[in-house]
């Protein structure tokens, strides 16, 4: 079978999706009214005029969590292939222990973050 076939089919679904969206947008454009007023075009802040930047209320926490995520997400890169082939004959305790060591490192990282209070929201 062709290497690309599976993905071609997937692409087909995407195409269908695109079609759907376009149709929807087209229909909407045809049907909906267009009466813009300055008030409408204001961003919504509970009725009062918006003040300041949108970034006003963001904190550094989000960065920290994203850092953590990046580290933990990539472990999947190694975890999934390992998990897939692990059951196959030939892989004994050694690979198991090695993967445990790997997870152990991640766990150490998590513990450190935990103890440092990074995981405490607020």
């Amino acid at each position, binding site marked *: 079978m062709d290497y690309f076939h599976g993905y071609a089919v997937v692409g087909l679904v995407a195409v269908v999706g695109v079609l759907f969206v376009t149709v929807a947008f087209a229909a909407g454009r045809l049907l909906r009214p267009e009466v813009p007023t300055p008030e409408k075009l204001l961003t919504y802040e509970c009725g009062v005029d918006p003040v300041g930047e949108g970034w006003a209320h963001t904190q550094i926490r989000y*960065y920290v969590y994203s850092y953590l995520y990046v580290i933990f997400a990539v472990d999947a890169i190694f975890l999934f292939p390992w998990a897939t082939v692990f059951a196959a004959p030939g892989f004994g305790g050694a690979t198991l222990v090695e993967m445990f060591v790997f997870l152990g490192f991640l766990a150490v990282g998590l513990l450190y973050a935990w103890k440092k209070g990074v995981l405490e929201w607020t």
Partner: protein
Amino acid sequence: MNPANYLYLAALLFTIGAAGVLIRRNAIVVFMCVELMLNACNLAFVTFSRMHGNLDGQVIAFFTMVVAAAEVVVGLAIIVSIFRSRHSASVDDANLMKL
């Protein structure tokens, strides 16, 4: 589908990234350009691995992703810290040590 095309794309991306590093002034953007370069490398790796029919390239791509991730964490941490202390991420403002 000729794999060489992917190589051309990789080279192009890499060049764009390098150019960006050299001409952009915002540390974050520069850093994104670096990431672009790394991903260009990944593309090249995977393509080559397909051309040679062994998996080394793909595995290396994995490792590259991990390294890139670690780099992102460290780099963003540093950049954010300097941004907080001087409210600017422009590499031109970092000039305390020009003599």
